């Protein structure tokens, strides 16, 4: 199932979902890829960390 998409495509979707909802097919293939891949879940957590960091930064900057 991992071969349905490459790590590059998976990373691209993990970045894109910060700004838009993924389509059904995109979500399903990404989920399958993440189950089979060792590297990509780390990338996904990096994106989550960046989102948390931006949220914390907004609070830190007092708004």
């Amino acid at each position, binding site marked *: 199932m991992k071969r349905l998409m490459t790590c*590059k495509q998976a*990373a691209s979707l993990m970045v894109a979902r910060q700004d838009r909802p993924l389509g059904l097919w995109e979500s399903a293939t990404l989920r399958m890829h993440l189950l089979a891949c060792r590297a990509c879940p*780390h990338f996904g957590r*990096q994106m989550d*960390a*960046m989102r*948390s960091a*931006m949220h914390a930064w907004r609070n830190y900057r007092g708004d």
Partner: protein
Amino acid sequence: MSIAESLAEHRPYLMRFARLQLRNDAWAEDAVSETLLAALAKPQSFEQRAQLRTWLVGILKHKIIDAIRLRSREVALYSGDDESASASDELDALMFKADGHFCTPPDDWSQPDQRLGSQQFFKILEACLDKLPPAMGRVFLMREWIELESDEICKELQISQTNLYVLLHRARLRLRECLQLNWFSQPKP
């Protein structure tokens, strides 16, 4: 301390954010001046505000949107930015092999939450935001700091949604790379 003096104290802080968002000193000066004038025009609001800075930042966000709207033609001119496109291709080549696998597996960024909320971290984050090319940085902060929806940004900058997503995508990858190099790869005290 008079109202004017209280407001003037916040000017450097507001300038820093206007500059970060607008990427143009003159535009930032205008936006901050208009913010302070708007605040001065409503002294009754000012007296009721315990959180003066929060109130001023709220006004500044509106003034920044006005500035972008006023200069949307100039801003949009930079959106196609060929230089940032080729730099992003280079970043892609650094991250991925020809077969689409990572060249180097991504690091584990899990850290105690307080580390990502530390003043040191925010300094690095702001330095990384400063490094983004103008169009990219402007769009990214409209999304992440002013918290506009995608369709609002497209309308203000007169760009297509595809163009917006490309700019945001590149900005996020660059920011990730910058944080990786300057924070997550650095030995911690």
